[in-house]
């Protein structure tokens, strides 16, 4: 009886019900959108940390002054830089090196010789410890000659053929989404990438300042052994090798981490502001609605309704409005945030990885609980007031 009375009341005043539902929908929309943004940024940063995979990077000194290596790794720009291969032998002599592997960078172009302008990263399958563990999640076989592994944001599929500087490459695997610039990168073995580099020199498309692709590498990735800390290895490497610079990957992503903290704080403040504002508006809306209906409630009291029944009617109405409004808001939020994740990533220019389906469902449930609870709490004030109603005064028209 109580539920049907509350629902009849809501149906009887469609305008008032619609306004209350829109308010709770907006509240739920803000909560779900904000939490998805913050959660995606956090997942993106954690994914970036995982994907860099090494404690230290050694790059040519010029690359650090031009910031080109950070742009390639963190911003998704395409480019290349090289240093003599002999640096690898010098660095390997540094005390405290646990794992050491070289990488070779190349950028494809948008001209006819390449299927797509992307960053190409070549790795040494013998020593690599950063890319192969990640590749193994999608492809657990050794890469053959001319095999490439592509990032998740490239619109090609396993078995497709992509051309780079006239070299036809087979897509052997497509990697999992990381939410970072690695999603638009192509990975391959040293042999294939050097073949591409030679092809680009032969075609006259690049000169690479006259470097011999066989005699250079782009960067060295290092994981330290337990004997020494990464800080000590970085200092030692920088002290003994003047033409290169060793940097800790944690320091490289500290800028991204700071920006992420800033964006998360702004989103958090906005969410809190909307939540407080929404709560105040809902409180006013419920108070005004109950004030309008004082006579209706007084008549209900006269015909035998208890104080508790009146309070429960108001609460049932608030819960019904809150539940439907929140469900609409959450559905709308998910319909906007999930398909437009790519646009959000572009807009924020930061690593952005959507949470898993399970986590998204948990966030949606939390947003539902928060908005329904806010609606219920604001309605509780009105429910309390209506339960204290003096029927005589109301019906005499003195109030």
């Amino acid at each position, binding site marked *: 009886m109580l539920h049907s009375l509350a629902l009849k009341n809501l149906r009887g005043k469609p305008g008032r019900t619609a306004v209350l539902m829109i308010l709770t929908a907006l509240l739920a929309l803000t909560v779900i959108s904000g939490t998805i943004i913050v959660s995606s940024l956090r997942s993106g940063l954690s994914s970036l940390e995982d994907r860099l995979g090494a404690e230290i990077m050694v790059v040519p000194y010029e690359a650090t002054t031009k910031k080109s290596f950070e742009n390639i790794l963190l911003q*998704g720009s395409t480019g290349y830089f090289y240093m003599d291969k002999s640096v690898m032998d010098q660095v390997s002599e540094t005390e405290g090196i646990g794992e050491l592997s070289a990488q070779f960078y190349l950028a494809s172009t*948008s*001209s006819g010789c390449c*299927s*797509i302008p*992307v960053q190409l990263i070549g790795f040494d399958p013998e020593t690599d410890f950063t890319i192969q563990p990640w590749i193994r999640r999608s492809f657990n076989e050794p890469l053959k000659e001319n095999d490439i592994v592509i990032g*998740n*944001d*490239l*619109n*090609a599929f396993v078995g497709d053929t992509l051309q780079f500087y006239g070299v036809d490459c087979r897509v052997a695997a497509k990697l999992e989404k990381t939410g970072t610039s690695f*999603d*638009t990168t192509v990975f391959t073995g040293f042999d294939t990438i050097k073949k591409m580099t030679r092809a680009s020199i032969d075609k006259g498309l690049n000169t690479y300042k006259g470097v011999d692709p066989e005699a250079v590498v782009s960067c060295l990735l290092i994981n330290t052994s337990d004997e020494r800390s990464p800080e000590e290895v970085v200092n030692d490497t920088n002290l003994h090798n003047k033409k290169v610079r060793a940097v800790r990957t944690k320091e490289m992503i500290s800028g991204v981490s700071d920006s992420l903290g800033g964006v998360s704080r702004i989103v958090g403040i906005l969410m809190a502001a909307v939540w407080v504002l929404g709560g105040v508006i809902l409180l006013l809306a419920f108070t005004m609605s109950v004030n309008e209906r004082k006579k209706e409630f007084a008549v209900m009291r006269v015909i035998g309704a208890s104080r508790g029944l009146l309070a429960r009617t108001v609460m049932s109405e608030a819960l019904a409005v809150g539940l439907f409004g929140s469900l609409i808001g959450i559905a709308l939020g998910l*319909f906007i945030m999930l*398909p*437009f*994740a*790519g*646009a959000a*990533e*572009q807009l924020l220019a930061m690593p952005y990885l959507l949470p898993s389906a399970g986590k998204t469902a948990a966030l949606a449930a939390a947003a539902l609980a928060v908005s329904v609870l806010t609606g219920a709490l604001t309605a509780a004030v009105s429910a309390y007031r209506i339960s204290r109603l003096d029927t005589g005064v109301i019906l005499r028209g003195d109030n």
Partner: protein
Amino acid sequence: MKKLQTIFGILSGALSLVLTIGVKTFFSACDHMTDTGAYMSCHWAEQAVFAISLVLCVTSVAMVLMRDPKMRSGLAMAMVPQAVITMLIPNVFINLCMKTDMQCHSVMRPAVMLLCGGIAVCAAIAAFLGIKAKEKA
């Protein structure tokens, strides 16, 4: 019932109009290449979506203006596959760009899919309401 059918007809018309204008403005495909000036394949997907969205606009206007609920239902039913086909144009019937972080993948495709989904649902409800009204009569 007829009023409700008109409301869903107007809704699908409004969504079709947003699709027609939007695909050429707010959520258009990628710009042409800066070096060669050539259009990428996503441009042709945009053109195809624009052409079918014009048909959707005309069909929904006709649906709202018609008085016969049978005709209205027929037009609404025709809009459902039209909307579904339009939804499939970007990257299924016509390939988009190679990088999925580009405008055509990150903005145009989700916007077209959401709007076409909305049009299909509204048109299906309008068709259903027309059939129900006919049964009652």
